[in-house]
């Protein structure tokens, strides 16, 4: 299973290295969102600094939609689903591999976004351990739930429009938890944030476990 997962993740990351979709399209989109927030909300009032945690995670959420769509566009091309089913790869391995590749790409995007928030919104980084732990847990949750719902929508003619409505309500807890944890860390009250981090970790575990179990059936029959 883990051999298959690493093979799959390696393949997805190699595709990204050659196509540069995340670096040349999704990352600029993320920065663009930060700029749009800045334009829409009056930057002089300090709103951006106060809301930076929420804006950061909203941006991550929208970027994750793009990353997930992308991850399954690769597979949908030219009969990829049949090929995957015939490949001999363990479905659980495929799930973990794709989720891991999304995790890595989202992690990189978060670094870009964090730099953007610090530079453009004047946010001061405090409580770094909590920030990092929150990012890891939240990103794992996004990747796991996203991979599961991504394969659900993949292969449908309306996938681009269907995925957001299926996935975003499910990810609402991640947005809430990650934002609160960030606010706690940035507000110097890290102790308040750790329970949220725990919630995020539980969410990630739940979806990873469910995805590992259900992915085979989904790949099989949808």
């Amino acid at each position, binding site marked *: 299973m883990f051999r*298959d997962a690493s*093979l799959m993740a390696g*393949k997805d990351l*190699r*595709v990204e290295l*050659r*196509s540069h979709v995340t670096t040349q399209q999704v990352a600029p989109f993320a920065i663009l969102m930060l700029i749009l927030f800045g334009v829409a909300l009056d930057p002089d009032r300090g709103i951006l600094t106060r809301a930076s945690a929420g804006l950061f995670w909203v941006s991550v959420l929208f970027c994750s939609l793009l990353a997930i769509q992308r991850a399954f566009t*690769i597979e949908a*091309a*030219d*009969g*990829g689903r*049949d*090929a*995957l*089913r*015939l*490949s*001999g*790869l363990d479905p659980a391995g495929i799930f973990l591999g794709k989720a891991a590749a999304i995790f890595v790409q989202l992690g990189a995007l978060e670094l870009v976004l964090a730099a953007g928030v610090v530079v453009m919104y004047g946010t001061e980084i405090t409580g770094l351990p909590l920030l990092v732990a929150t990012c890891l847990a939240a990103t794992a949750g996004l990747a796991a739930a996203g991979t599961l719902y991504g394969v659900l929508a993949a292969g449908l003619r309306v996938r681009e429009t269907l995925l957001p409505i299926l996935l975003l309500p499910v990810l609402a807890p991640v947005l809430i938890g990650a934002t609160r944890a960030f606010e706690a860390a940035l507000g110097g009250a890290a102790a308040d944030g750790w329970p949220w981090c725990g919630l995020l970790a539980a969410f990630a575990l739940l979806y990873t476990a469910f995805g590992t179990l259900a992915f*085979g059936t989904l790949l*099989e029959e949808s």
Partner: protein
Amino acid sequence: MEPVVQLHGAVTLLGRFPALAGIDLEVAAGEIVLLRGPNGAGKTTLLRLCAGLLPVARGQAVVLGHDLANRRQARSLRRRVGLLGHATGLYDELTVADNIHFWGRAAGASPTDIIAALTACGLDGRLAGLGVATLSAGQRRRTALACLLARRPELWLLDEPHGGLDQDGRDLLDDIVRQAVASGATVMLSSHELDRAAALAHRVVTIVGGTTDALDPLPTSEEPVLVP
């Protein structure tokens, strides 16, 4: 020795449509069987069924000893067969070599097998480093064939394998199929290149309306032999 493919009254549904409406077919080990019939007769569906990709709704289907009525057995069958379909399953963003390495390793092929497959399909050298997106249709087919070869399948299921290939490519394909059979594999293929495919095949099976009511021997007459 038990036949590799045993289908008795096999029915397969695509949605509600019975694409296969009762197939009776036995294929012995080492045989090359040509499936022919008009478009929409069910040839592709039959090959996909034998690959373990589709469930049997009725009747019996046992391939390489795996009972296809059992989902788990159907799934474990898949790594033992190789299906070359209309879609190639290649990743456009990756190179030829990357693709063959990925699909080969996914099926557990050794690096030497993978290199051998690349060479056998004439894809070593300059072509190996090209992105699949830049390939011609024929070169894509070759790449897909190499992926298949690297898997060393026991049952080869070739859906219109000659389509899109040039003269050299077709000769190459026929050679590869003959070599595979010589080393113990079994082959089912569909083709509209009837002359070429018939020369390759040991036996021709005609499918019409999702059934195999006619099993006619080689060589065939001009007029199709069909049982109403």
